[in-house]
């Protein structure tokens, strides 16, 4: 019992740290509102795909809780190096030398030749990585978009090439797992593989992706705790609370999300944008 308490406390602190980072960001956005707007830029021609949404069962949580995912639009592919380069050119406050250190860790845009030059040998059409959650949010905001929520992202990720929900097919999890075992996929161009049922590309095969609420209801880094507590989301997770224990690929995504903080920048972590829609057909 004491161990559990200590653990919860630790997780609480971790969580509260992340929270305070968000608060800082909110404050800073206010500052931006008064001083510098985030500038939009012209080079994003990415197609957005309409996802009609529906009831979906989160990977973690009670079997009986279904989440209603409202219709939304999502980029058909991850944000590319070229697009992020255009963003930092239009928004110097997000260039490597001038970015506020609270928003990114030391690896932000690692290996870029300069503030406005991509890394040597980087493919402009490959997904951008080494970007923090703050940076991803700023990018999305600059073009009137937002990051997808975890539920929206996972809703799209339930699809294989033929069906909107392929979770029960053994081939679905196996195929993703095989992809996850391969290294250095993030250097490949986007849209070179088949899109899924919705017409969304590169859901699994290139990078991990930020979601807006990546640090909400997750497993802990230790997946075996076997506890689910809807009051304190930070103590949630574990093999017994997963709705599909053989969905190894989903475990890995959740594991990744628990390992990151909003200022982290990582070699194989990028993002794509989403947007609300009023269309409901």
């Amino acid at each position, binding site marked *: 019992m004491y*161990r*559990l308490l*200590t*653990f919860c406390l*630790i*997780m609480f602190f971790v969580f509260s740290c992340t929270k305070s980072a968000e608060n800082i960001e909110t404050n800073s956005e206010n500052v931006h509102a008064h001083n510098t707007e985030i500038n939009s830029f012209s080079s994003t021609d990415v197609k957005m795909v309409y996802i009609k949404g529906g009831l979906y069962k989160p990977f973690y949580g009670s079997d009986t809780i279904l989440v209603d995912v409202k219709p939304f639009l999502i980029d058909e592919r991850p944000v590319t190096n070229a697009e992020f380069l255009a963003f930092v050119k239009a928004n110097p406050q997000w260039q490597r030398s001038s970015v506020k250190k609270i928003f990114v860790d030391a*690896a932000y845009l690692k290996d870029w030749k300069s503030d406005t030059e991509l890394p040597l040998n980087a493919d402009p059409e490959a997904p951008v990585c080494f970007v923090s959650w703050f940076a991803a949010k700023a990018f999305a905001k600059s073009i009137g978009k937002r990051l997808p929520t975890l539920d929206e992202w996972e809703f799209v990720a339930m699809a294989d090439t033929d069906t909107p929900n392929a979770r029960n097919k*053994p081939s679905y*999890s*196996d195929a993703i*797992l*095989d992809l*996850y*075992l*391969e*290294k*250095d996929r993030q250097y490949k161009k986007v849209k070179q593989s088949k899109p899924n049922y919705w017409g969304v590309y590169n859901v699994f095969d290139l990078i991990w992706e930020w979601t807006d609420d990546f640090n909400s209801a997750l*497993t*802990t*880094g*230790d*997946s*075996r*705790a076997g506890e689910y507590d809807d009051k304190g989301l930070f103590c949630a997770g574990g*093999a017994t609370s997963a709705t599909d224990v*053989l969905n*190894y690929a989903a*475990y*890995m995504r*959740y*594991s*990744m999300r*628990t*390992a*990151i903080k909003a200022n*982290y920048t*990582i*070699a*194989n*972590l990028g993002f794509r944008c989403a947007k609300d829609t009023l269309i409901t057909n």
Partner: protein
Amino acid sequence: MNTKNFMLLAATAVVSLLMSCNTNEGTKTTSTTQSPIDMVAEGEPEMAEVTGAPNVPAPVGNRGPKKWIVKLETTEIEGTIADSTKYTFWTFNNTVPGSFIRVREGDEVELFLKNAENSVLPHNIDLHAVTGPGGGAAATTSAPGKETSFTFKAINPGLYVYHCAAPPVPMHIGNGMYGLILVEPAGGLPKVDREYYIMQGDFYTKASSKKGLMEFDNDKAVAENPDYVLFNGKKGSLLGANMIEAKVGETVRLFVGNGGPNLTSSFHVIGEIFDNVYLEGGSTISHNIQTTMIPAGGSAIVEFKVDVPGEYVLVDHSLSRAFNKGCIGKLKVTGEPNPKVFKANTLVKE
């Protein structure tokens, strides 16, 4: 029997019981009565020596409790699993098993876990020697390129497995993410001539998208049907030029762990009898053991004196694993024959 005699007999029995208890205490090598929690780790933290199998760091000897820094890096690398077959291993410090850590009870360890920048996945470490949530797993979950740390006090002497506990755990372990940490009792383990580090693991493989490279097969792992059962992560890791060695008359101590993820080992050395086995890596010492069970996620310390030269074969005595799946190694003993102990007779004519 009258009452007086009975009392005398009873008293004798009690005394001899006490004495035999004392004898057991002696072989358990525990000396102080101070709780390891209250032992003060002296001085500034020093970088601990860690080693890849089959080597182990120097014994702790008589030193007092100290502070240590242990650095481990998690990596995902291509390596050779058997003959010319490549496999994508996940490791601690680029070896399977991971680096051997050696401390004593009362030591304070600050463990740093760095996940290599080119890792695909997050990793962490659960050390069975740690008293605390997840054995450190939650505190050390590290995204690719990131480093985490936590501090623990070693309070229970014994030989302990450590492993990655990031989900899916069987896959991380199945790819080789395990190792051993030895916590010696105060005063150290009794001195021996040779010490080696051996760890068994079961491997589940299938072809990957890359030619000639095998990768983890989830279905085989769930079915607990491995293609390979191996000592030290590679077929032949203890054969040929890699045999472990000893000389006639020497005492040998093997620190044997079993990473699993699934199989229990029936560890046996063909042609030897274990003089001492620290059962399950703990403090109880059993004697004259032929085969000792080592659970997945468990260990044993076995000791024996080598009296006769020759090649002694280390196996999991679930023998299909040894002869069909690679779980075989050798100890080469050199020196003078000892016909009093063993002599091959010439063929008796018919």
